[in-house]
């Protein structure tokens, strides 16, 4: 096939912009992230997840007074169920966020102190536990 003929066929096959009612995609900075943007976002999440994983295994970092880490009872973050929060917490007698449940364990199991809501350690733990449940359906309130 000669080159001009091939080009003509290609042009005939391609829909003309706006012709078939399909508008061209929007072009915005936010909606069209570059590979670099994706990389930065993934790296940032990974950093906090790794920090949370480390804390989860670190009794000293958590302020545990018994030597118990979170992972002692929850290997691989099992039986933490981030996707089931918020939910009614029987011992606290109120609806709890995941961070409230983390603090309940720190106080009652590890006999440490509750972390403040803005403590980066609490945020990192919450991130780690949530990332472990990625892909699961959210089921707030599930027992």
């Amino acid at each position, binding site marked *: 096939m000669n080159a001009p003929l091939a080009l003509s066929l290609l042009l005939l096959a391609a829909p003309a912009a706006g012709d078939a009612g399909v508008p061209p995609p929007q072009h915005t900075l936010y909606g069209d992230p570059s590979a670099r943007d994706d990389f930065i976002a993934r790296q940032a999440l990974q950093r906090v997840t790794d920090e949370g994983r480390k804390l989860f*295994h670190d009794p000293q970092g958590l302020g545990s007074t018994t*030597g*118990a880490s979170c*992972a002692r009872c929850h*290997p*691989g973050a*099992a*039986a933490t169920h981030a996707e089931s929060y918020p939910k009614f917490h*029987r011992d606290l007698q109120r609806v709890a966020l995941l961070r409230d449940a983390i603090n309940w364990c720190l106080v009652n199991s590890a*006999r440490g102190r509750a972390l403040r809501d803005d403590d980066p350690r609490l945020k990192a733990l919450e991130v780690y536990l949530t990332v472990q449940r990625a892909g699961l359906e959210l089921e707030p309130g599930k027992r």
Partner: protein
Amino acid sequence: MRHGLDRRDFLRLAAGAALGAPFGLLDIATAAEGAPFRLAYLSDTHLCEADVDDRPLRAALKAIADINALDPRPDLVLFAGDLTEHGSPAELELGRRVLAKLRAPVKLVAGEHDWYLDLGAAWQRLFGPPSHSFDHRGIHFVGLHSVGEADFWTGRGLLAAERQREAASLDGSLRGPFEVGDAQRRWLAADLARVAPSTPVVLFTHVPLFRYAPAWHFSAADGADALALLRPFRRATVLHGHTHQLLCHRDGRIDFHGLLSTAWPLPYPPGGLPALAVQMTRPDPFDPFDGCGDGQLVIRDGAVDAVHNLWARDAITVTARYLDSDGRIDRPPAPPWPSY
């Protein structure tokens, strides 16, 4: 004190006062073979010194009160490892004094928590060789050391406490799998060579010998090699601690029973359970005794029924007939909902 614990016992142990009774290793008299008899078990007490965390000590004393109150009294008590949480000499000595309160003789193996602070030095000083065997009422009993690990600490320059913490981390990433190891397997082969294949064998370890959740270090990498040594026997039962949950399994003529912990329960791992395993209901996180307990082993003609005395629930019995019948007879009660 909760759950009927003897306050004087607790205070005496917590204060570190010496007890009169020595740690009782047994001198077993052989009774009539074939008659049913009863052992008790407790496991995974994870004792801390009382000023660090008194709860494991209270729970262990509760188990001992349970076992001492059994009527008829059990012939002996098996303990399947992780007597202590951090493996310090003080914790191990506390453990020795706690076990000395049992009115029946006790036989025990070590867990990784007991072992890796000093590579078993203090444990062996108090309790003797890591693997051992004895005969009782026509059964050959073996305590097999199962918490060997390839050296992950020297190259990394880990301190003793760091080594212990890593070895005791179920989902730890620095170390390799548990193993029975060549030396212990050679010992087992030599020990079993003296036993007629018609003799039933009851072997107790800390780590399961069948393949179970390697990602959580729930099994020994060379467990199959150790089990191969049991296969010539008419009947063998393997008991293990470590998993802190209701668990059973059958492989050929070998029955397996996981023993409950007195300290805390563990969730079931991802990746599936043995076909005959019946889960225990997900423990109530707000009841520190739920999912914990002690138990009894009823032995008839070499077959072992495990009675798991769950402290916050009805006891659950896993019979040899359940395992022998491939789950058709004596199925234990199912949980109302599976773990998730």
